[in-house]
């Protein structure tokens, strides 16, 4: 081992970091954790809002489908009623013409 190598070993000996290094580090780790938690809360809020919005859209769509179905039923009933009325009118007209011919 040369004198230079000995001197280097001595000069480059490990040294402790400034006092309070470990406390500063641990509080930094804790604050990094705190920063990540609001992020999670934020994400959960967005997920909840999205779920509520999707549920609302689903309900609206179901309501519209029910309305369309109800309209279809009403239309069918009206058509049936008109067909009955028309048939009765034709029948009555036929009877009137028969009486007139006598």
């Amino acid at each position: 081992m040369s004198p230079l190598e000995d001197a280097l070993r001595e000069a480059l000996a490990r040294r402790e970091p400034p006092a309070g290094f470990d406390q500063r580090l641990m509080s930094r780790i804790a604050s990094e954790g705190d920063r990540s938690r609001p992020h999670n809360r934020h994400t959960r809020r967005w997920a909840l809002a999205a779920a509520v919005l999707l549920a609302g859209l689903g309900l609206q769509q179901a309501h519209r489908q029910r309305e369309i179905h109800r309209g279809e039923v009403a239309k069918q009933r009206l058509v049936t009623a008109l067909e009955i009325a028309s048939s009765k009118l034709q029948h009555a007209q036929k009877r009137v013409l028969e009486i007139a011919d006598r």
Partner: protein
Amino acid sequence: MNVTEESPAGGMAISACEFAGIVREHQAMVFSIAYHYLHDRLLAEELAQDVFLQLHQALPRLESPAHVVFWLRKVASHRAIDYGRKRKLRLVSLDRAPEPAVASKSEDPLLGERLRKLVASLPEKFRILVILRFQEGLEPDEIAGVLEMPVGTVKSQLQRSLAMLREKATRYLGGGVL
């Protein structure tokens, strides 16, 4: 070190208290690699804190206390090189440094500081080798593992580093100092 419990992934699962113990055990090593490389205490502390923050996240992947030491040396060395490249270092101007008043190692309390400045003035690839060799006492094959370099390259660059330091020491510290 009380960190032998294993996580489900095969890494080490430890409490905050045990992590604080790891920090206290290795903070001098990490801080010194950074300090001897950057020659700046504030920057060295910042780097060391970043390394331990990264360790906190990486710990579940590390398998043993020896793995932790290897990991810390490796990450601290690579980060020191990155810090040195990214930030404009206040370079030590040896040409303007005053000549040493005393010429004997035992009589010169500033010799250590002057040597550290000489090391800090080495090119980056030589500087980290010298730190790992003389601060950490690593053998060339261990340095090769940390820096992911061929052992032959480590040996030849260490020899060149020592030759440069010897030449600088003769020029700036006087021929009779070392």
